[in-house]
């Protein structure tokens, strides 16, 4: 199957700085593709190049196998939901949605019919005569998507459209966006700096940093098998230590952190050798907590620690445990079974985790 969108060796330079550095990817039809990265990583630049508002310095952009580099933005079969939505405040909702159809010279009755259909589809029938500023944030969001979808684009680009919404609404819109994508059955390319948006909605996620793609994969792959220290640090929370490799056997290894803690980790196929500086990442939820050391026998990392802080946060509650010598603080997820509900500051606990959960990367790469 030909991909809906294909970017080949895309490069964009602004003077001496390289905003996008040799990025290639393709997006299969009907999928939800996200580009995730911190602000300034170049993700907006990629999106603007796809939409046609920037010319790449080199490389190619193909939509359904045809290069669009020489196609002006108003002729490209892609549409964009802008960061601040860019709904036209001087027009009604119906005029907003019908804008592109009018440009295509459709007869008036057909425009009206399509607009009504679109409003129906986004669950806002009958609001066509309202003004843009009469809508709520979530409604505007849906109108902005409908305005693009009536044109049946090959690819819909979304530029952090949830950024301006408050937290509760953002959570709801994530689910809704995914549902809309399924309903319209269109390829979505979504950029965001919010990992949870990317993880929840996407089929594929590209993690971007300093103009390059660090890794492309499903949310699960990025989360559990990060390819680089940047991805490990950027996606999800991690305990993170720097140290030196002291022993390597196969995929497993041993690392002594700078503060002297000896931990077991895994290289997951990366080449690491004894004496090399490295970083190790361990997710708080990968660490088990127990009252009795015997329960943790099957883990190759075990220690007795003292609780220094309780971070109550509902389902995401954590504790911070200090190792016996007081060298490191380790964040550990609190199980929700109620077993540790009575835990107090200063209590002694046993913690342990499997070495395979400790992702190691050579230091200095990023």
């Amino acid at each position, binding site marked *: 199957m030909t991909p809906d969108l294909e970017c080949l060796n895309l490069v964009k330079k602004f003077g001496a700085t390289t905003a996008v550095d040799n990025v290639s990817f393709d997006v299969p039809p009907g999928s939800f593709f996200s580009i995730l990265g911190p602000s300034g990583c170049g993700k907006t630049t990629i999106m603007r190049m796809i939409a046609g508002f920037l010319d790449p310095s080199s490389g190619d952009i193909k939509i359904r196998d045809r290069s669009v580099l020489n196609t002006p933005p108003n002729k490209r079969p*892609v549409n964009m939901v802008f960061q601040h939505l*860019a709904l*036209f405040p001087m027009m009604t909702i119906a005029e907003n949605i019908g*804008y592109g159809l009018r440009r295509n010279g459709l007869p008036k009755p057909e425009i009206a019919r399509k607009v009504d259909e679109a409003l129906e589809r986004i669950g806002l029938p009958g609001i066509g005569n309202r003004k843009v500023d009469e809508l709520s944030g979530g409604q505007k969001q849906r109108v902005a998507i409908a305005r693009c979808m009536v044109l049946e684009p090959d690819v819909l680009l979304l530029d952090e459209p949830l950024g301006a919404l408050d937290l509760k609404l953002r959570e709801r819109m994530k689910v809704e966006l995914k549902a809309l994508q399924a309903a319209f059955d269109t390829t979505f390319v979504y950029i965001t700096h919010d990992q949870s948006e990317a993880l929840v909605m996407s089929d594929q996620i590209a993690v971007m940093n300093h103009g390059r793609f660090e890794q492309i994969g499903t949310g699960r792959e990025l989360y559990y098998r990060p390819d680089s220290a940047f991805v490990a640090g950027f996606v999800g929370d991690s305990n993170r230590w720097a140290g030196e490799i002291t022993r390597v056997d196969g995929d497993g290894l041993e690392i002594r952190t700078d503060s002297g803690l000896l931990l077991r980790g895994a290289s997951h196929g990366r080449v690491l050798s004894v004496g090399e500086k490295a970083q190790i990442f361990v997710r708080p939820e990968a660490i088990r907590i127990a009252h009795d050391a015997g329960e943790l026998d099957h883990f190759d990392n075990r220690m007795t620690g003292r609780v220094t802080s309780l971070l109550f946060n509902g389902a995401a509650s954590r504790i911070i445990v200090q190792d016996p010598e007081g060298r490191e603080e380790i964040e550990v997820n609190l199980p929700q079974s109620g077993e540790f509900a009575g835990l107090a500051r200063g209590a002694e606990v046993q913690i342990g985790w499997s070495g395979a959960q400790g992702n190691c990367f050579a230091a200095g790469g990023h």
Partner: protein
Amino acid sequence: MRTQAKLGLFLLLSPLLLWLTLLILIPHVDMLLVSLRERIGVGQYQTSLANYFTFFSEPLYLRTFVRTAVMSIMATAITLLIAFPVSYYIAKMARGRVRSALFLLCLVPFWVSELVRTFGWMILLRETGVISKLLQYLNLTDGPVELLYNDAAIMVGLVYTSMLFMVVPLVTTLESLPDEVIEAGYDLGGNGLSVLREIVIPHAMPGIVSGCIVVFMLSLGNYLTPTMLGGKDSLWFTELIYSQFIVRFNWELGAAFGFMLLILSSTIVWGMLKLTGQSLEKTMG
């Protein structure tokens, strides 16, 4: 606390009321009263509409009145047409330093007296002026050409003098149009013309209206430019008012003229606001 608030309100209200009553309301009422009296003997007056009858029955007055109105509207339209692309360029095309510099350059001529600007055009346009000399030098004409003292010269002067008052509100409103919205217009298939018509101009409407109102007012009430640049036949209505007041000392007729000018300007301003659905507070305040 309440009495203190009342005292504060009273203290702040009094300068405003004094200003508006003594310098705006009472003078205009007085002007109306004077325009409504007819001199029937030395120091004897009676109330009548005689001055307004004179205005409507004398073709010179009426013609000048209409001419002034029409030319002011034309000057406003021309100023808008010239200023819009410039304002758009400053607000949306230029970036950073260039933008501030261009905007500042637009303002500079208007920190200088209108008299100086008009004087500049006289030096350029008159028979012995720079342009006439240039045309002769280029052998485009045989002898000196008089470009001054005609309606076109008035038009140039009015447009030049009003330019700032069109550019500033236009730049301000156009700047407030996010690039994103223009890009969305293109992204959804629009071209330059349709984006201009459906997005840029509707957005700029408050600026267009306030610019047009001010420019129209300034043109209508201008005295200097028509006097200096206009010819014998291009009489401006303000010149009639001046001559009734200062030369002929016929204040009654002059006041009636003043009132006609006020009515004309109010009507057109009001019409402009109604036509575009704007309000005075929104466009001026």
